[in-house]
């Protein structure tokens, strides 16, 4: 495989990992005021992500670092192009991270402030990432709003399923009951926006990145259906996975439900990066953005050696903390 394509896949993998992993972190954080009625319950909810959230966030750091190294012009254009939204993301991640770490080390009254910071930071970060990618793909404010709402809603659903999976007692029951409520927001948003995304990925519509490369577009959405069944299957699969997750969570099959929300996020991310592969930014191709073959080659070797270890010890962390958390 060509190195440029390989590194694009690596970056897509890292972003997907970030959305799946920090997705439930964000969901748990955003749900905090709803799910935890007492201080102890909020502490219990946070303990489900406590050992892992920081490692999950490193997926973002690595995705961005890899983009810098492998596609400098993409990194530079994306980050300077979405300047103020990213200031918002950074501020949210700062508030959230500090609040998570400090929560157990402050006085009870101040803990409420930390909880508010965790909830607000998680919700804002989840929504803003969705908005940035929505706008990046479609180039419209409507897509930004829709992307933000979808991202937040799916994170909340993903988080509620994760809480049901990782807690015991009243919190588990409440998280399970919350799942359909979260789906009420997530499913319609997914049903509205994912066909548009599939359409864009199939190269038949859109004004943002899609238009930047697939300038010859113009055929009706239906044309993409036959031309690119895979992206349509991914979009339909994502909606179906979200619906399945709710049903599974309701039947207390929480592990499978979590696998379903994770699969939905993976499918959406896959479709997003299928589109970005043609043009990571409007008017920019991957080849133009890429670093030289030497850099890509040497990073490939180091990455291939290191990645199994990284994935291994992260997986081990999840294994160590596999038990449900009680109050």
């Amino acid at each position, binding site marked *: 495989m060509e190195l440029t394509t390989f590194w694009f896949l690596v970056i897509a993998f890292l972003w997907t990992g970030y959305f799946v992993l920090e997705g439930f972190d964000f969901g748990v954080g955003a749900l905090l005021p709803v799910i935890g009625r007492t201080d102890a319950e909020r502490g219990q909810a946070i*303990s489900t992500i406590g050992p892992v959230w920081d490692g999950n966030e490193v997926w973002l750091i690595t995705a961005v670092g890899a983009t810098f190294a492998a596609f400098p012009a993409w990194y530079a254009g994306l980050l300077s192009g979405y300047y103020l939204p990213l200031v918002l993301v950074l501020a949210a991640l700062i508030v959230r991270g500090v609040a998570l770490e400090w929560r157990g080390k402050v006085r009870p009254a101040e803990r409420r402030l930390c909880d508010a910071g965790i909830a607000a930071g998680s919700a804002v970060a989840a929504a803003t990432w969705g908005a940035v990618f929505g706008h990046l793909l479609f180039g419209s404010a409507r897509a930004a709003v829709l992307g933000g709402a979808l991202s937040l809603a799916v994170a909340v659903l993903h988080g509620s399923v994760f809480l049901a999976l990782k807690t015991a007692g009243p919190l588990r029951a409440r998280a399970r009951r919350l799942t359909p409520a979260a789906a009420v927001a997530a499913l319609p948003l997914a049903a509205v926006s994912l066909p548009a995304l599939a359409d864009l990925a199939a190269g038949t519509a859109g004004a943002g990145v899609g238009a930047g490369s697939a300038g010859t577009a113009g055929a009706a959405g239906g044309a993409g259906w036959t031309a690119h069944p895979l992206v349509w299957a991914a979009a339909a699969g994502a909606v179906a996975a979200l619906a399945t997750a709710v049903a599974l969570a309701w039947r207390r099959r929480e592990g499978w439900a979590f696998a379903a929300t994770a699969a939905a996020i993976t499918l959406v991310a896959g479709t997003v990066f299928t589109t970005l592969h043609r043009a990571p930014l409007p008017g920019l191709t991957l080849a133009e953005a890429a670093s030289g073959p030497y850099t890509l080659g040497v990073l490939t070797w180091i990455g291939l050696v290191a990645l199994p270890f990284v994935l291994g010890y992260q997986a081990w962390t999840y294994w160590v903390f596999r038990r449900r958390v009680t109050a």
Partner: protein
Amino acid sequence: MDALDLARWQFGITTVYHFLFVPLTIGLGAFVAGLQTAWHRTGKEQYLRLTKFFGKLFLINFAMGVVTGIVQEFQFGMNWSEYSKFVGDVFGAPLALEALLAFFLESTFLGLWIFGWDRLPKRVHLACIWAAVIGSNLSAYFILAANAWMKHPVGYEVVDGRARMTDLWAVLTNSTALAQVPHVVAAAFVVAGGFVIAVCGYRVLRERRSGGADPMWRSALRGALVMTALAGALVAGTGDMSGRLLYEQQPMKLAAAEGLRHDTRGASFSPVPGVDVPKALSALAAHDPDAVVRGVEDLQRSFAERFGPGDYIPNMPVVYWSFRVMIVFGLTTVALSLAGLWALRRRRPVPRLLARAGLAALPLPVLAVIAGWLLSEIGRQPWVVQGELLTAAAVSPGVSLREVAVSLTVFTVLYGVLAAAEVRLLARHVKAGPEPAAPAPGPRPETAPLTPTLMY
């Protein structure tokens, strides 16, 4: 004021601020790991209490280092897109390696350490903090190697107006990096040492007022004094190396640091204005008292000939004074650690004066490292990559003055509030002191609450 000025202010403020927390992450992490190892080896309760006490201070600080570090990684692309496009092929690689090889290690194993007290075998739990410490130190290596490349670019060629890496090994073993990495990492250990010395001093003074001080503070103090003295020797040695490299690689920075106007044979060194030590600068910089040290005005002339008209002289007063603050404050801290070791020799109790001096000296190493960064980065101006790219040409062309003003305000206000909160939180925990000895752990339940002392 234009967007460039504000972007520079933002980078300066956010970077200096980030580096207030980094040294404690690097040095205090190792110190806590050392305490836990001592507990593991000796089984003495006092080491466990110290581990948990300093571990908590470490974690309060760690959070700030992490979240302010994310801003750093994004800022290159957000505010310095032309820089990022120019250097990404070379500079991006150590950043990607830092995330992959160091940050994952640090954050994953720290999570295991924080929550793994009653969940992991003792030995594995100890290994977790060491893995996290290795991660922190490794990250310092990668980012400092990247930074060293900006001062002394190696292992690359410029193709179509972009730097292309030709040799990663050369980038990672850049002579500038090999001097800078141990210099900065050891300085971090001095800062952490100074912090522990101050905390122990405070605890000794406080506990003596209400009876007697716990003997464990003397142990911790001794450990911190040894760490500071050893790290101090390394800082001084590598500082000398860096000085000689400046002479070869960054003569303008050296000249500005000394306020030397003209090329001078047997240049003298003035520790403070008005005092001149003959030939000392030549001796220090070139290890030859009769060597010629270049001066800013002569360098300006040759730079203008080579790179075209322009002002190639950095801000002289800032560079001159930060150089002195770095050396004087840094060496004072190291001298204090040596004096402290002498005062504590052969089971002597902690003298009041030492406890007080240690507490009073808390700001010194912090100010020294900040000054060191100002010397290093302002001394490189007007270049962002020495000899290749000017700072003015590196800024994001599409980011407006208004946008940078917004972000600068957001970060400054947020950072200010968090700094105040962090200082209060640290002070409160230092004042409260360590928790009393813990009772024996109960049996492991099938489902477990996750809220022991060090947790969230």
